[in-house]
């Protein structure tokens, strides 16, 4: 199980911001999320959305260990 965190407009779109999801890789996780909520799946793949695994930005595919924290980060606005 990975812990998935959504921020900003992604959380508003999904209607949740913190959920446990069964997935062994980032692409697998994207597939699960898109299967449940296609609009969210599209938004997660949209321009400017970055992904952090265990608080480190990753690009492309990555394996997920049990207990990994995966955060989807829309474009940052600054404070």
């Amino acid at each position, binding site marked *: 199980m990975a812990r998935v965190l959504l921020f900003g407009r992604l959380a508003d779109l999904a209607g949740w911001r913190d959920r446990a999801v069964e997935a062994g890789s980032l692409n697998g996780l994207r597939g699960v999320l898109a299967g449940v909520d296609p609009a969210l799946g599209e938004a997660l793949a949209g321009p400017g959305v970055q992904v952090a695994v265990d608080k480190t930005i990753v690009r492309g595919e990555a394996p997920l260990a049990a207990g990994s924290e995966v955060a989807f980060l829309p474009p*940052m*606005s600054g*404070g």
Partner: protein
Amino acid sequence: MTTPSKIALTSEPFEPGALLTAFCAGRDETGAVASFAGLARAEKGAAVALELEAYPGFTDTAIAAFADDAKTRFGLQDYAIVHRVGRIAPGEAIVFVATAAVHRRAAFEACDFLMDYLKSRAPFWKKEHGPDGGRWIEPTAQDRTDAQRWD
């Protein structure tokens, strides 16, 4: 200076003056303390509240990495950064940055530099709540221009 430089994210209102008092204490070799307080604007009623989301453990780490580089770049003795998260009412402080240096040029430039980063590139997500609801916003063109001054 032995004072550790400090970054805090807080969901509670804070008082910039109290932070400045603490930051200035015991500085008999500092010379220059520049500071900046960003306050939420009411926009004559068009802004009901500002909502800022951070990713604890990611946002503060990113800010610390940037600020420690700035400390070296400008030869700061010390800095302090306090950033509000959550729902912020007009007039309340959003951010406070203080920088300490021997001379004022370094203190001013570092404070300005840190603010440009915090306002344009730091990992926050910002929602403006108006009378007709909320909307997520992105950096302004001015924010990008300000940040690029340092590249």
